[in-house]
Each structure stands twice: as C-alpha cells, then as structure tokens.
C-alpha cells in the first residue's frame, strides 16, 4: 500500500474514487454498492419498478395529476413519523408507539382547539408538547432504567390507545374545524411560490456543496469531483422541475368550479423537516454522537459521550416528530378518532424507514431514507387501491416488500462485513 502514495501526502494515499471522468465515478459507485454500501438504491429501483408497473396497468388514473398530489398527502403522515423513527432506529432501538403518540398528540390538539377554542398556534404547540412528554417518559425508561425499548414502547402502544379513548370518548371523534390546520393537507402553494421554493432549494444545494468542495480542494482535503457535483446538482434540478411542473398543472375534475393546482402544503412540511433533521444529524456533534452510540455504545461512553442523554433525546425527538405526523393525519381526516395513528400507520412508518435503507441493527441510516421509503409504501397502497385489489392483498404485498427490504439490509450487512464497509 505504501508504494502507491504520492510524495505530497506521505501518510494518506490519494482517494481511489477521486476519478475526474464519468467512468471513474461509475466504477467507484459500483465498487461501493458491491461492497455492501447500497444506501437507498434498492428503494429507488423498487420505486421505479412500481411506478412503471402501475402506470402500465392503470395509465389514466395512476399517472393523473390528481392522483399524484393525492399520493403526497396520503403518504405525508407515515413519512413524517418514519423520519422521527430513523433517530431511534439509528440507536438500534425501536418505537412501536410512534403511531399512537401521533394520535394522542392530535387528540390533545383537538381538545385544546375545539373544546377550549384556542387558535392554531397554541393547539399545535400543545400537540408537539404532548409528543415531548411521551418521548421523555419512554426515553427515561429506556435510557435510565435500561428496559428494552421494544417492551417499553409496546406498553406505550397499548397505554396510549387507552389514553386516546379517555380523551376522545369511546366511538367518538373530535372534528377539526380550524381552517389553518386543515389547509396543511387540503390546500396547495400558489404556483409561483412552488417554483420559487424549488429554485431556492436547487440553487441553495448547488451553492453550498460547490463552496464546500472548493474550500476542501484549496485545503488539500478530500472533495467531491466537480463532475460528480454537476451530476448530483443536475439530477436534483431535473427532479425538482418535473415535480413542480407536474404539480403546477390543473388537476381539478371541474376547473371552472374550483381550480386545483400547485405543490401541496404537506410537501413543504416534509421538506422542511427533512432539511432540519438532516442538518441536525449530519452537521451537529449531537448527530455524530447518535451514530456513535448506534455503532458502539461502549466506545461512545468511553469517549466521554453522554450515552443516556443521546438516547433520551432521540426518543424525545422521535415522539415530537410523531406528534407532527399525528397532526397531518388529523388534518387530512378533518378529525381525530381513537383509530388515528392506529391500524397500519406505525408499521408502515417502520417499513418506510427500513425500505429506505435505515438499518434495524443501528448505526446506519439517513433522514432522507424515510422519505424515499415512505414514497414506496404510499405508491404500493395507492396503486393497489387503483387496481381494486382487496385490502388483504395490499397488506400481503406491503409485508413482502418490507421483508425484501429487511433482507437487503441483512445481506448488505454481510457483504459489508466481508468487504469491511459496514
């Protein structure tokens, strides 16, 4: 190995992937995937296959603008809950109660808003505060007492169902009359604002990554080849244009009566959370500690990391984000019932995170995995519905997809262990 190094960097040989041409970038990416570092690749491929299959089977309904926007609103709650779950999964823990945490938080919000006539701001605050309280309880039991999170959150799963029944009353519902809350899933951004946000997103990404690369190149540190940067930025721009373009078309069944176009508001919530949470996980010391605790808790402890606080904070974050997920569920249904956040919500959310590439073994995963996985889950549910399949078939297919995702995780771990990429 020593023979390959260059004189200007005596200790560290130049990066093998620092290829400046297309072939080199492709080869290094293939090597990475072969080594078991598949990332979100299986999910993206699966998504493409699903979209193609459903587009062929239901060309007029599945690909319609209306269904596309519908899909986003359908998947929003599951995706958001999955984003919170990523943090808990990164620790190698699980939160089975995230769905009902969302439901309970939404119920509290409903009570504050409907029974106590508070505005949307106070209500949303109460919703998130409920999530923080639930997360703190779960986190303390797991991190402090050392009870396995599976048991604690299973207990919370049962207990919170009871709490919801007590709050709402058996068989009852709390209607959501507040327009501001309902607008999250019912209304869309004005077309111009959708384009502005998309442009800001793409330009922001391009500028931040370009400046970072330039700085690292000047400092003689490892950096992304400019070509790779261009490919990434270009892809992002193409996706953004297609996305916003398609959503900006008229999708109302009766445009003369009511026009319906623009990026759904729930999309903004998802993107906002994605940015904030990714930033927290990737750029803060706390985020680094989350990965460390998930990778080797003992090493983290010896390195002086407060493992208990890291665990506690991850559970608090997960439950708070789940509360926002519950808010989205309630906003979409215009009400809270004892079933809000129940049924398949939690399992879809865990499935979304895992399908996207977050490892159940801890230490590996990103927030964006939840968004990709959440889209896969939503496309299955939506497409199967359009095919008029029975709910039983939808569950079976979703279960199989989750199984495939978990297998990909396990197999890639084995490959990673063999090639040492883990």
């Amino acid at each position, binding site marked *: 190995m020593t023979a390959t190094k260059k004189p200007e960097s*005596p200790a560290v040989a130049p990066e*093998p992937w620092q290829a400046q041409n297309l072939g080199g970038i492709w080869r290094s990416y293939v090597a990475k995937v072969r080594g078991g570092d598949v990332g979100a690749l299986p999910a993206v491929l699966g998504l493409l296959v699903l979209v193609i299959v459903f587009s062929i089977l239901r060309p007029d309904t599945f690909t319609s603008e209306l269904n596309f926007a519908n899909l986003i609103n359908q998947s929003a709650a599951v995706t958001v809950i999955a984003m919170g779950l990523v943090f808990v999964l990164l620790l190698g823990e699980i939160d089975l109660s995230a769905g009902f945490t969302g439901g309970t938080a939404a119920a509290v919000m409903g009570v504050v808003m409907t029974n106590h006539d508070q505005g949307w701001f106070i209500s949303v605050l109460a919703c998130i505060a409920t999530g923080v309280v639930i997360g703190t309880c779960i986190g303390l039991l797991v991190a402090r007492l050392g009870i396995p999170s599976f048991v604690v959150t299973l207990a919370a799963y049962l207990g919170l169902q009871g709490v919801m029944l007590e709050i709402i009353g058996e068989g009852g519902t709390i209607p959501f009359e507040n327009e501001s809350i309902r607008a999250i899933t019912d209304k869309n951004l004005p077309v111009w604002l959708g384009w502005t946000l998309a442009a800001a997103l793409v330009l922001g990404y391009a500028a931040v990554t370009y400046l970072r690369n330039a700085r690292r190149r000047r400092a003689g540190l490892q950096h992304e080849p400019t070509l790779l940067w261009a490919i990434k930025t270009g892809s992002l721009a193409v996706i953004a244009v297609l996305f916003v373009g398609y959503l900006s078309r008229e999708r109302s069944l009766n445009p003369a009566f009511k026009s319906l176009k623009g990026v759904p508001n729930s999309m903004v919530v998802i993107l906002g959370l994605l940015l904030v949470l990714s930033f927290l996980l990737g750029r803060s010391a706390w985020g680094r500690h989350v990965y460390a605790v998930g990778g080797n808790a003992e*090493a983290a402890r010896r390195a002086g990391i407060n493992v208990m606080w890291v665990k506690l904070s991850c559970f608090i974050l997960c439950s708070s984000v789940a509360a926002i997920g519950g808010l989205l569920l309630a906003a979409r249904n215009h009400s809270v019932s004892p079933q809000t956040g129940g049924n398949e919500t939690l399992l879809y959310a865990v499935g979304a995170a895992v399908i996207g590439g977050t490892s159940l073994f801890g230490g590996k995963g990103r927030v964006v995995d939840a968004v990709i996985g959440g889209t896969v889950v939503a496309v299955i549910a939506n497409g199967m519905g359009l095919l008029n399949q029975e709910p039983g078939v939808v569950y079976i297919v979703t279960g199989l997809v989750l199984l495939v995702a978990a297998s990909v995780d396990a197999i890639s771990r084995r490959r990673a262990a063999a090639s040492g990429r883990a």
Partner: protein
Amino acid sequence: MTATASERAAAPSSGEPLLRLRGIQKSFGAVHVLRGIDLDVKAGEVTALVGDNGAGKSTLIKGIAGIHSFDEGEYVFDGRPVTVHNPKDASGLGIEVVYQDLALCDNLDVVHNMFLGRELRHRGLLDEDAMEKRARETLNGLSVRTLQSVRTKVASLSGGQRQTVAIARSVLWNSRLVILDEPTAALGVAQTEQVLLLVRRLADSGLGVILISHNLNDVFQVADDIAVLYLGQMVAQVRKDDVTSNQVVQLITTGSTGAEGASA
C-alpha cells in the same frame, strides 16, 4: 503536535519521572488486589508492565486512568501530587488509555473516530475540515503509512490499522502519558512490527508510555524499563538491559529471581 512533542523530548529522561506511584493499595471488598505498588514512568521511555493473569495489571492501569480510584498511596504526576477520581481527571492531566478492545465505532470513519466525543466545532457545527486536517497531521507526525484514506470507515481496516487509529487518537490531545493495553495481542507478525514501531515513536517524541504485554519478545524489543507485577505486588522495576528474558519469566511466575537486586 510534532513540534510540542519534540520540545517535551528535550527534557532528559533521567530527571523526575512523569508518573510516580508510591505504596498504592486497592481492595475490592475482601480481595486485596494491589498491595503497595511503586511505579515510575519517565517521559520519553516505554515502561513495560508485565505479570501473569490476575497479577493486578488491569486494576493498576484502571486506577491510573481514573476508572476507579486507589484506596491508598501517592499519585504524583509531573512532580505534583494529584487526585484522579474519574477518567476526566486523567485526560485533564494528559493521560490517555488505548484499551485492548480499542473502543472504535465501526460505522464511523477514521477522522470521526479520532475526534469522537471531542469534535472540533465551528460556530456550533462540526468543523470537518479542521478535524480532517488535524487527523492527517497527527498520522503524518507518527509516520503512519498504512492508511489508504482518513475517510475510510473503521470497519474496513485491518487489526493493525485499527490499533494505529486508536493510538493516533490517544496522542491527538496534547497527551503526556499513553497507556497501551496489549496492543499486539490480536495481530500478525508484520502488523505487530508496525505497531511496536509506532509505540517506540511515541516514546521518542517525548511521551511517557506504559505498555502492557504478555509477549516478552515485544517487551524486549521496545521497552526501556520493565515493571513486573506478581500477586498485587511490584516485585521488580528494572532496566531492560539489566535482565534477561528468563529472569523476567521467573519474576512473572514466582515473584523472585537472583536479579531482583537490580530494582533497588
């Protein structure tokens, strides 16, 4: 790092020892593990700590590192009597321990592992550039030539490379005394050689080094001083050149030999 290290090396190793322990006692309940240990570790030297299983080596280094405190005895660091109650006190003095199981996170890369728990920040955010730069400088300063990239995940490193990362981490923070717990235990011949070279380089750059090892070949290759523990007592601390391998084996197994007078 290299600059300060060579300044430290200027201090002659014949002077005041960097670490001086006198009459250290430690019991766990009824078990009297350490019975009046004396130990001197000089800057710029490798002091090998040898002894059979259960002789008290681990208890001794855990006490030095502050994982548990000694019951009795004098703990003098750099000429000043100090009290070390927890690992923070020890790292505050510049004492770093490289444990046998290395305590690295497989899912993080070399830079992240070296700065684990002590990340450099810039306006509250991780300062990746500065960390990568310093990690490289430290590795270069130790003349480490076996790492392909500081951004490789630790999982993909060989045993010797992992040991190198763990050792490099311990010298990243103006450390004065590095304690290595069986650094060559799981390594092949070539890797053992590399790690021993690295251990020697640490001492040559002016740090005090305590090397725990069962392998007397390693000990005789790099150590300047050999301290032998036998059933919780320090039966000898001798210069390497004053003893033979056989005498050390005798000290380890029986606690006495004709050469014992050399420890005086």
